[in-house]
């Protein structure tokens, strides 16, 4: 049995992270959380999350960046928006989840072999580079980078999909790929400047 330290000292807090977090939503709305727990209570995946949305946001507000960006909660969020629609303080929880995911990936805190960030990275990389998705290669990359063993059982599905033409091995792309790249880079730069809403 391993023992996790249950105590946090002030030096564990990252004030810059806390400031970044509260600035995600206008009017400091993220500080208005009354901890009713409706977000976690409504979340269909809360049963598998280490923190759940309420605790995740409480830790974020206090600047415990390591706990937040290292949690599985942000990766299990399926963006169903159940939390957002029910929140009595109208906090856009799902949007905040996205911001935290991006931050984890950008700062290298995302678990390297977790399928969700691996998939997200592969997806955006392929769109950036080619302007189109070719699922066969996306899935192959995902399998290679997140541990191939867990996909062995799904080989049959893959072969069937290929055989019926649901996926193709032909690498697809658009014309003028450099223009799309420039466009997407500009969007990325812009989205770093604006809040989630």
């Amino acid at each position: 049995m391993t023992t996790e330290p249950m105590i946090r000292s002030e030096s564990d807090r990252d004030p810059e992270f806390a400031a970044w977090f509260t600035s995600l939503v206008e009017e400091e709305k993220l500080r208005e959380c009354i901890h009713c727990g409706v977000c976690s209570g409504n979340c269909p995946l809360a049963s598998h999350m280490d923190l759940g949305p309420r605790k995740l946001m409480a830790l974020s507000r206090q600047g415990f960046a390591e706990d937040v960006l290292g949690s599985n909660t942000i990766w299990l969020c399926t963006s169903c928006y159940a939390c957002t629609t029910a929140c009595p303080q109208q906090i856009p929880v799902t949007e905040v989840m996205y911001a935290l995911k991006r931050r984890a990936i950008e700062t290298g805190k995302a678990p390297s072999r977790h399928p969700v960030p691996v998939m997200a990275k592969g997806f955006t990389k392929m769109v950036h580079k080619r302007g189109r998705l070719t699922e066969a290669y996306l899935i192959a990359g995902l399998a290679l980078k997140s541990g191939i063993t867990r996909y062995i059982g799904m080989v049959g599905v893959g072969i069937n999909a290929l055989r019926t033409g649901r996926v193709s091995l032909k690498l697809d792309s658009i014309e003028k790929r450099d223009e799309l790249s420039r466009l997407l880079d500009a969007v990325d730069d812009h989205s770093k400047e604006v809040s989630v809403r």
Partner: protein
Amino acid sequence: MTEANLSAGNGNGSPRIGVYVCHCGTNISATIDVVAARDVAENLPGVVLSREYKYMCSDPGQEIIKDDIRELGLDRIVVASCSPCLHEETFRNAIADGGLNPYFFQMVNIREHASWVHKDIKAATAKANDLIRAAVRRVRFHRPLEARRVPIDPRVLVVGGGIAGIHSALTLADAGKKVYLVEREPSIGGHMAMFDKTFPTLDCAACILTPKMTQVRAHPNIEVMTMSEVVEIDGFVGNYRAKIKHKPRYILEDACVGCLECIDVCVFRNGKTPDEFNLGLSKRKPIYIPFPQAVPQVVLIDPEGCIEFRTGRCKKTCVEVCAERNAIDFTQEETFSEVEIGSVIISTGFKAFDARRLPQYGYGRLDPVYTALEVERLVNASGPTEGEIVLRDGSKPKKVGIIHCIGSRDKNTNVHCSRVCCMYSLKLAHLVKEKTDAEIYEFFIDMRTGGKGFEEFMLRVKEEGVTMIRGKVAEVYPEAGNTGRVVLQAEDTFLGMVRKIPVDMVILATGIEPQADAEDVRRTFNISCSTGGFFTERHPKLAPVSTFTDGVFLAGACQAPKDIPDTVAQAGAAAAEALALIDAGHIELEPNTAFVVEEECSGCKTCVGLCPFSAIGYDEGKASINEVLCKGCGTCVAACPSGSIRQNLFEDEEIFEEIVGVMANV
């Protein structure tokens, strides 16, 4: 007109004007150069003396004015300080003490109009100088006036017959004042009559309320008007006139003795209409009494359900049984009446939040879900189950969940905390536990027990074994397998885990909202509402039961959510404010009334129809203004084609001089 020929004097002789510039601590002096302003004023024509002082409104400040009047023979005073709303009366009184007519005075607002709204010292000082110059020019034309004294009608209108209205009415009536108590429901009593016990002392609501209701009925000074609504009010403080609509009861109130025999013999053997008082948990007949202790003890007929109204072919067994008293009258129609009163107390109460607006809690869709008010009726011995707590399927609950903050503390519905739900939820937990020994879960966000004996009550309920879970239920859904139970899913935020708890009964602690027609009431009585829709008091700390309309007071939950002790305290306060007004006997009104210069009036009657207060009469070919009714709006002054109507404090020369003064440097 130049400054030179003005200094030569005017119709009021050569005035000797004193100007006083106030620092208001640093409120004014930080932004306005008060010394420079004093120096500028000193050189204005007619000004004998100009001073600046730290606080003109203080006793020493007022003494300076009084001494100067006596020693220097000043006969006009200008004070440049704050808003006249604050201290005009202070300075008028000081001037009167000094021996001058109090209307030989003009106040200049250099705080709200200059120092508080500007940053540039030079510009703000220049503006202050302009305003002071305008006042100095104007005040020379002031004439001696006398305040109007208007008698106060000692009768009071109380709107809303819940516990707030009942308490106000009784307090006033006991003090010997005539009270009209208007209630739109068939009985007085309000929400309190529906409650079972009251927190935290658990005394029975009916036991403490019904004696007061009976007192109201029996009191010679109180006239109760049920099924009635105030539709119109006009007049002013001390002299209001209210128009009241009376809905038909189809029963002659004076003839009915409340024997209830008509209900027994009604051709409907059983009730078919959902009973309003029991929130639809039982059925009533078309002829009914709202609840056993109703005041007045008079039945009423609901024309929607009555066969005679629907078909005209009923056997009318009710009329037969009432033959001796003959109290039933199917021909009644809506009527109107008018009352004259001097003040009004508004105690229109609240509306319980409609839980259907939050579908995730299943109210109206899932049988085990009840609102707190429904459970009050279930627990009550005179309720639909005679105090037995049985569910819609006839079973007794073994596990009960109570969810706090339904329609409160939620930006999707109401942001405010309804203040009473924590305590009434604890009370219901206690009562349900006592009657059924069920296992009880209270889902709260924050337990708000700030009140005398409230925290102690919560501890008592905890000791009784009620489980407290900190977290709001996210969803209520039927348990799998057709058990009839529902599952409450919530994060237990203390444990940091989501829990799913199946229960037999859910109680939704619905919050307090303004009445649906609060906006109409606001308009009728010319008062204001806060953003949440509750009526606004004149000052949140220092005038909590007054409104911005003189003579109109507030009591109870129409002003903000509050419990019974606070409501009664406020009702007493509102009655005391009304009494203070009444016992003063009269009020003084500004003498800013219009008057007709008879020699010039051509009798064209243009003004008569224009006056919004019907204050202008027509007498022997001339218009004449009733100065008690005149509110000084100035409409007639502007409209008179021959310029023969003038208005005190707003004479043409006063206004023109003020304009010249302000524009002097333009």
